[in-house]
């Protein structure tokens, strides 16, 4: 019973968070309210994160805490110290880190508990998460390189080789997904 209530509260919190995201984005669209909108959206994120932590099946918080501490330190330090003029690069980097995070989530979901069958729908979702996450990551890295003017011609080639390699991986992935 208690579990059901907790679940219900968590799910309702997600709806509240989603509403705050929408209002936040709306307010970000006009100069007078933009800062408040960002604040609202971050409050929504806080609610969603707390709700996410109560999810059923989480038995070990040690690694979550470690990951969050590392991420907070890196993210906060990077956001504080970066020069105002190199903001676009920073946003590209953050976007890339979000992309690789969803790639890793998709990848991690593949390791379902033994005996549990991954449904076709879940498998397709996982493949999409890995595909889009990987694309976001490589795309953002190239954007970062171009913005910070560190991509020379040979490094560009290297990145393209990387993309090609990823495409091959993707084809292999879809192939194995279909076979699966």
């Amino acid at each position, binding site marked *: 019973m208690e579990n059901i209530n907790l679940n219900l509260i968590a799910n309702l919190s997600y709806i509240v*968070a989603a509403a705050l*995201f*929408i209002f*936040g*984005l*709306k307010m*970000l*669209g*006009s*100069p007078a309210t*933009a*800062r408040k909108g*960002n604040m609202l*959206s*971050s409050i929504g*994120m806080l609610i*969603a*994160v707390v*709700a*996410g*932590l109560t*999810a059923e*099946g*989480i*038995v*070990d*918080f040690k*690694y*979550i805490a*470690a*990951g*969050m501490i*590392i*991420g907070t330190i*890196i*993210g*906060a330090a*990077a*956001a*504080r110290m*970066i020069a*105002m003029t190199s*903001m*676009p690069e*920073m*946003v590209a980097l*953050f*976007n890339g*880190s*979000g992309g*690789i*995070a*969803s790639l*890793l*989530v998709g*990848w*991690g*979901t593949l*390791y379902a*508990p033994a005996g549990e069958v991954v449904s076709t729908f879940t498998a397709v979702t996982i493949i999409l998460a890995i595909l889009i996450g990987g694309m976001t990551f490589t795309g953002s890295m190239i954007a970062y390189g171009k913005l910070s003017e560190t991509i020379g011609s040979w490094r560009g080639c290297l990145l393209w080789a990387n993309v090609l390699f990823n495409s091959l991986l993707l084809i292999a992935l879809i192939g194995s997904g279909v076979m699966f």
Partner: protein
Amino acid sequence: MELVFLTFILVLSIFLGFELISKVPATLHTPLMSGANAISGITLAGAFLSAGMQNSEYATWLGTAAVAFATINVVGGYLVTDRMLAMFKSRKGGAK
């Protein structure tokens, strides 16, 4: 049924995103992009599951890395957006 519900949500959110973004002044495009990117850090909720369920050692390590990266995205994204907007505001105040 799950497929129908999730597709329904996806379609609605596509419309919503389009409506929210379509009438924004050009000066706010960069902070808006940055703020919207911070929201994409909601993948953190999925990362928690992967990191905390102890399904297997691989899932735990991948999940931990995902938690770290998603947190960078969330914390960094909001702080950077706030810094941009703070500058925006003070510059506007100065002009007045």
